[in-house]
């Protein structure tokens, strides 16, 4: 199961598994983000390249206007994925 929710005005909470079947659901939120947001991975167990691509596209778009996604509470497995892909260099991670 995957859930994505906007909380606290500028925070996106991800839950469950962000796999290729969940891209459309995620885009419903990410496509409307126009300013800096925090993405909270606290409840996210899994992410694949499909999910990473959504984050990357959003980051590319936001940074052209001086905004960005900031990521927090990433678990050790997902953090490893971020290191393999160099995402830890293009996202601010708490």
């Amino acid at each position, binding site marked *: 199961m995957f859930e994505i929710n906007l909380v606290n005005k500028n925070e996106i909470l991800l839950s469950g*598994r962000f*796999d*290729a*079947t969940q891209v459309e659901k995620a885009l419903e939120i990410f496509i409307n983000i126009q300013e800096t947001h925090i993405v909270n991975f606290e409840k996210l167990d*899994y992410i*694949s*390249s*499909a999910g*990473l*691509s959504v984050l*990357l*596209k959003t*980051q*590319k778009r936001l*940074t052209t206007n001086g905004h960005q996604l900031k990521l927090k509470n990433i678990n050790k*497995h997902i953090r*490893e*994925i971020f290191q*393999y*892909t*160099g*995402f830890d*260099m*293009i996202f601010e991670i708490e």
Partner: protein
Amino acid sequence: MGQKFKRNIRSLNDVFEYIAVFIDKHPLDESTAFSLNLAVEELFTNIIKYNADNPNPILLNLKRSPDALVAELTDYAVEPFDITKSHDYDPSLSLDKRPIGGIGIHLVKKMFDEVKYDYKDQQCKITLIKYLGASDV
């Protein structure tokens, strides 16, 4: 043996269920289990993407020995096309130069020790091998 899955993104839920049952019978450490789920998803979705019109299902076979975890994906009635030979993904590129594609195969190659492509009799088989140490169970 293995199991065949319909060539559809929505089959991923069944694929993950199949993997979960396998892991139940052949325990793996969390990291290896995560890698297995991720690598199979990446290859399954790539096979669908590059051969969308093929009506045949995709075969997934998982094997575990004391030393190794093996995942095989077989695609039927296809022309030869090695999806594992992707353009090398460069994780050091700046954000503006970073391509959207290629991440999946890059991850597969990082997480598994061997990634093999075989083509014979109109069948394409991709084999992933991860060598397991004492800490992988």
